[in-house]
């Protein structure tokens, strides 16, 4: 049973690696932020699976705090962090 969960966690880690490619290639800042949001969700999933494997329900609270804080990151990005380009330059990735 635990080996199955570790395979699943390994696959989720693969997701993060894939998300990394999007960060590198992502033309616009929003793509990179989507990758960050992916990381947040995948981290919550990994912590849940680890909690099941380690039989420690205390980690569900860690997942809960992560779920809350992922909202903060996205909102902070959209309202403050999104680099709005100078008027002349179109930020749709055609650089």
């Amino acid at each position, binding site marked *: *049973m635990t080996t*199955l*969960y570790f395979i*699943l966690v390994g*696959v*989720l880690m693969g*997701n993060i690696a*894939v*998300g990394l*490619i*999007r960060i590198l290639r992502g033309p*616009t800042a*929003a*793509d990179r*932020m*989507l*990758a960050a*949001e*992916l990381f947040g*969700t*995948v981290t*919550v*999933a990994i912590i*849940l*699976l680890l*909690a*099941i494997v380690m039989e420690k*329900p205390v980690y*569900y*609270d860690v*997942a*809960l705090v992560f*779920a*809350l804080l*992922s*909202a903060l990151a*996205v*909102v902070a990005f*959209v309202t403050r962090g*999104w680099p*709005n*380009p100078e008027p002349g330059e*179109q*930020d*749709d*990735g055609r650089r």
Partner: protein
Amino acid sequence: MMGAADIAGAVLAVAGVLFFLAGTLGLLRFPDIYTRIHALTKADNLGLGLICLGAAVQSGSLMTALKLLLVWILVLLAAATGASLIAQTAHRRGIRPWARQE
């Protein structure tokens, strides 16, 4: 011993991870930001929901099950709001949706 709950939990977890794979693949393969938002928001959150369900089934106590449900709802809320915020701002910033060139 592999109880019924463990099997159900394992199946749900596997399904959840499959949805995660689908969502991440979409994020990688889709051509522009709007389609990527769809992939990410829908598939990944469903994946997380299934994993939460799997964990809830295995945890046995109602309290943890409710807590996991809360985790899922919060992630859903965050993802939905984030998606619409990013999409609206991207549109206002003039990022044109991808169109198939014939």
